[in-house]
């Protein structure tokens, strides 16, 4: 039970920050003058309440955000722009059974037997130290009979229970409470994973000073002859590309999916970074109407995408839970469901001890010159009106890569080695990626439409791959999006305003994709070699634009998962806006999501070989499969959230 004094103490810094931003208009005139220009500080303060109710979970967001945006034209042509943002999400206290200090509970663990699926209390085996010692005489085995007070059967959920049943697959316990309440499995995965309740409630108040959302200075230096040098330095978003929703070229800033999964505008969830950008604006030439060369140097310390801490409402792909559960397995051990294949048709829950399987180290690139990120873009408009860009970027992957086959203690023998090929003992890395791409847009007058195209080729991305001893592979990737915008008069919506119909088709191809059929099922890469995702936006404007209904459809063709997000936006006054909406998912391809889970990888040969295996001394995957852990890559962000149907209301007020 949260006590008021505690709440009050934790809220103090937030209240202080909000007080500062509230006070901005009053003392804006007292802010320091910059340069010679007497233009005053321009300060806009807005408040937003975003409340979400989620099917099966109840309240999933009660976030209150106060934002102050300020601008100052300083002297000598410089301008300063900043955004301060602070929020407090009450969901962790108002629905603490689901997301807060009382989340989770005692769980059971599943075993597969010839008689069917059987559940037993988590921590109770049946495969334990004693059983293995008794059955095989392996006195040095590292399984455990039970877990101690540091790893109780409390505050837990079963991995994946937010989106699927265990159903004979791999599963293990995931601690879900904030890390000051339960520190099991807590790691800094890159801005998430180790957050306390107060940090989950108010994520901007962290050691990266995220309450300073943007702060930069910019100036255009005239070079004469119609040429300019544009400089913008500071904490900022740099947006490349021309498509909505998909991030093919728009990869300079990482994204905070913990804020509202994929359902917020990217400009609200990009994580601003300290970046210097310089544009040489060459203007027109004899053959080109516009030419620009941009250099972008992201000199900030690396940050990945925030995938959402396990136990918080928005954990995209349920990845945060997988990571936390794996980290807890490494640190404290845990029971893994349907694991030990001791007899035909029998897969028993197994009590692993610490340091045998799981996720150990997280290698977040430290700040160094070589870890900074650099991009170049040439953007132009041809004589005929084709607007295009050519882009090149060297950056760090914003998604983690798990390198397996690492150090561990053999569960059966107690032997420690620095590497066990095919063992699900992982470290987390963020590899360097090089990107080459381009984009363009043009009109198609006959269709009354504008077309946007964007494509990128990357080298260096890493993917899960059970055909490799390290359980990952580096693969080159091609991604492309084509989008068509067509304003269309739809009389029943409005006779004076067009309704925007915008369709996009995203394509991804993974080169050197590995997929083969093992003796027990498919082995290799869970990500689809070729996949398409289509989106359709229909947005109307009524009542002189004060009421705007819209619906977005997104369909993942391979995952066979669909999201629908209708909403109505109502500008009640110039300063007050209400938005009511929902997102609802459908998934018909769940049977396609299961993939090799490496239970049959046999890293501790011969003990981990499947029952009756023809080659019990060799480690490799035979392809025994389930939904966890790799099904999430096949389900995608829509499929992995298909049980998270939300209704929301949002209120924005500008002071």
């Amino acid at each position, binding site marked *: 039970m949260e006590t008021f004094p505690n709440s009050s103490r934790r809220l103090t810094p937030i209240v202080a920050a909000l007080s500062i931003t509230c006070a901005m208009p009053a003392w804006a005139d007292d802010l320091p003058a910059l340069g010679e220009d007497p233009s005053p500080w321009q300060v*806009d303060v*807005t408040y937003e309440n975003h409340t979400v109710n989620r099917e099966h979970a109840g309240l999933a967001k009660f976030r209150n955000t106060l934002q102050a*945006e300020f*601008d100052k034209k300083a002297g000598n042509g410089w301008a300063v*722009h900043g955004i301060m943002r602070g929020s407090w999400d009450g969901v962790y206290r108002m629905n603490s059974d689901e997301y807060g200090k009382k989340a989770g509970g005692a769980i059971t663990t599943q075993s597969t037997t010839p008689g069917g699926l059987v559940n037993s209390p988590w921590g109770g085996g049946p495969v334990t130290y004693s059983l293995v010692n008794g059955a095989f005489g392996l006195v040095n085995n590292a399984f455990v009979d039970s877990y101690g007070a540091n790893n109780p059967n409390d505050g837990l959920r079963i991995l994946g229970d937010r989106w699927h049943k265990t159903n004979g697959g791999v599963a293990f316990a995931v601690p879900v409470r904030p890390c000051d309440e339960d520190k099991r499995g807590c790691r800094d995965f890159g801005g998430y994973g180790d957050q306390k309740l107060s940090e989950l409630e108010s994520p901007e108040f962290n050691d990266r000073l995220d309450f300073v959302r943007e702060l930069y200075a*910019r100036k*255009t230096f005239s070079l004469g002859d*119609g040429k300019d040098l*544009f400089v*913008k330095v500071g904490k900022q*978003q740099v*947006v490349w*590309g*021309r498509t*909505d929703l998909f991030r093919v070229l728009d990869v300079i800033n990482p994204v905070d999916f913990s804020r509202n999964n994929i359902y917020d*505008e*990217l*400009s609200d969830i990009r994580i601003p970074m300290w970046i210097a950008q310089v*544009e040489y*604006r060459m*203007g*027109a*030439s*004899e*053959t*080109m*109407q*516009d030419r620009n060369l941009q250099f972008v140097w992201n000199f900030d310390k690396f940050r990945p995408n925030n995938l959402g801490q396990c136990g918080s409402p928005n954990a995209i792909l349920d990845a945060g839970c997988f990571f936390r559960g794996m980290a807890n397995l490494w640190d404290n051990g845990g029971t893994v469901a349907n694991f030990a294949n001791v007899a035909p048709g029998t897969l028993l829950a197994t009590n692993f001890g610490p340091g045998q399987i799981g996720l150990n180290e997280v290698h977040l690139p430290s700040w160094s010159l070589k870890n900074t990120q650099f991009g170049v873009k040439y*953007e132009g*408009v041809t*004589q005929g*009106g084709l*607007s295009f860009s050519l882009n090149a970027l060297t950056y760090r992957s914003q998604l983690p890569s798990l390198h397996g086959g690492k150090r561990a203690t053999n569960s059966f023998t107690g032997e420690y080695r620095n590497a066990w090929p095919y063992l699900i003992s992982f470290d987390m890395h963020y590899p360097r990626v090089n990107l080459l791409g381009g984009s363009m*847009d*043009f*009109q198609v*007058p006959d269709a*009354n439409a*504008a077309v*946007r195209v964007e494509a990128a080729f990357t080298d260096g991305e890493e993917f899960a791959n059970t055909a490799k001893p390290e359980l990952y592979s580096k693969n080159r990737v091609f991604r492309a999006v084509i989008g068509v*915008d067509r*304003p*269309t008069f739809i009389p029943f919506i*409005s*006779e*004076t*305003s*067009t309704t925007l119909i915008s369709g996009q088709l995203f394509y991804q191809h993974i080169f050197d994709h590995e997929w083969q059929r093992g003796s027990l099922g498919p082995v290799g890469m869970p990500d689809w070699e070729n996949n398409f995702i289509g989106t359709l936006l229909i947005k109307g*404007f009524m*009542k*002189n*634009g*004060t009421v705007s209904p819209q619906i977005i459809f997104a369909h993942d063709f391979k995952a066979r998962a669909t999201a629908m997000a209708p909403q109505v936006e109502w*500008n009640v*006054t*110039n*300063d007050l*806006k209400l938005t009511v909406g929902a997102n609802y998912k459908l998934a018909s391809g769940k049977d396609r999501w299961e993939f090799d889970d490496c239970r049959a990888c046999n890293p501790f040969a011969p003990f981990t070989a499947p029952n009756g295996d023809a080659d019990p001394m060799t480690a490799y995957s035979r392809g025994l499969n389930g939904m966890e852990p790799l099904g999430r890559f096949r389900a995608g962000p829509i499929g992995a959230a298909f049980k998270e149907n939300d209704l929301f209301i949002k209120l*924005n007020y*500008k002071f």
Partner: protein
Amino acid sequence: MKRIAAALLPLCVAGLTGGAMAATEADVENSFNPYKAGMPSFPGLKPGTVINKGNVDQFKDALGAGVYRLIKEGLFEIKVGATTQFSVHKAYVDATRTNLNKTKLGAKAGDMISGYVAGRPFPEEPDAKDPRAGEKLAWNYKYGVNWGDGAIISPFYWKYRNMQNGKLEKQIKWDFHFLNFMHRTKDAPVPEFTPNPSGIFRAIYTKAHEPSDLKNTQLLIQRFEDDAKLDDAYLYLGFQRRVRRLAQGQVTDAFLGSDLMIEDFEGYNGRVSDMSWTYKGTKNVLLPMWNHNELKLADDMPAEADGYKYVDFAGQGDCFFQGEWQLRKVYVLEAAPVNPNHPVSKRTFYMDVQLQNLNGANEIYDRKGELWKVFMVGKAHADHHLPVNKGAGIGVDDAFSMVDLQSKHCTTGQFKGQVDPAKNPPRLFQVQNLRGGD
């Protein structure tokens, strides 16, 4: 033989209209100073006259049909001022003289003109018997002084109002920039910016500052010298931080929910070839034109550091600017969209002969032919406005009312127009400029 003669007839007509009726120095003089022989008059009308619902019928012939209806319905009243000279800048007039009769119409209506250099392409008095007289006036408008070689409106307030109850639904604070890339006569570089490989004739750049949901929204429209070429339009949405190319259809859309479509900007913001133009005659009509500094100005608007005050609004729903109307010699011009799917069936303009702008008192008819909207833009004399505008030689757009008679709604505009080349560098009109903002 008869067939040949029939085929030759249009060519002969084109030759006659395009070249045979050559304009003279006197035409130029009359075009830029139509009041040389004296100011126009109308029975019973004099400076100080107030025209309202009660007496509007007496002045019906001196009013545009749309304005007449607005007054007749009691939505507002107008105060008459003296007719004054709105002299066009000497550089533009000189360019007209220098290039007199160089401009030729295309072979058929909608074709690009040829030979145009600068100034007013067709300064001669339109002839009702000339089937292409309307088209000539349309070219005069396209290459007219409008905002001169370039200008900025900063700030520019738009208000969306419910005309029935006066409720202010939305207020947008903008900057609008206009720049002629070609056929420049006054500000350096004359006659054009080079290089300009796409042949951009003119560009409009806008940026919204308020309200918060539109903050940093920017629009760039590039119109080309080649009238057959579609405009390029780009929209930067502040909340998306991305530049979107606009499909052409969006120029006939209610722009950001207002009562204006992009095509309405400045009276008509489209290609000459998008419309079929008809000259309907010459008459004296009241247009909103005034000396800004002599008006009773609004006291409910944000203060400007230089003390500038905006034109006030009153009337039904506060939809109508409070400026004087003066009797002007106008050409009545009709434009019917070539595209049958256009939401407008016809526009009627009362083109001020001296300025040859199109935005004094326009009527916009819906597809059924019913009067849909009345668009009125009040012009201030440049010498009686901001000091920077003195001698600009244009009519400074000062306030607008776009009244939707069908939905009983209006959008109003209050300008702070500044003819200041320094505030209008060409780089503002490049797509990349949109991306470099906040």
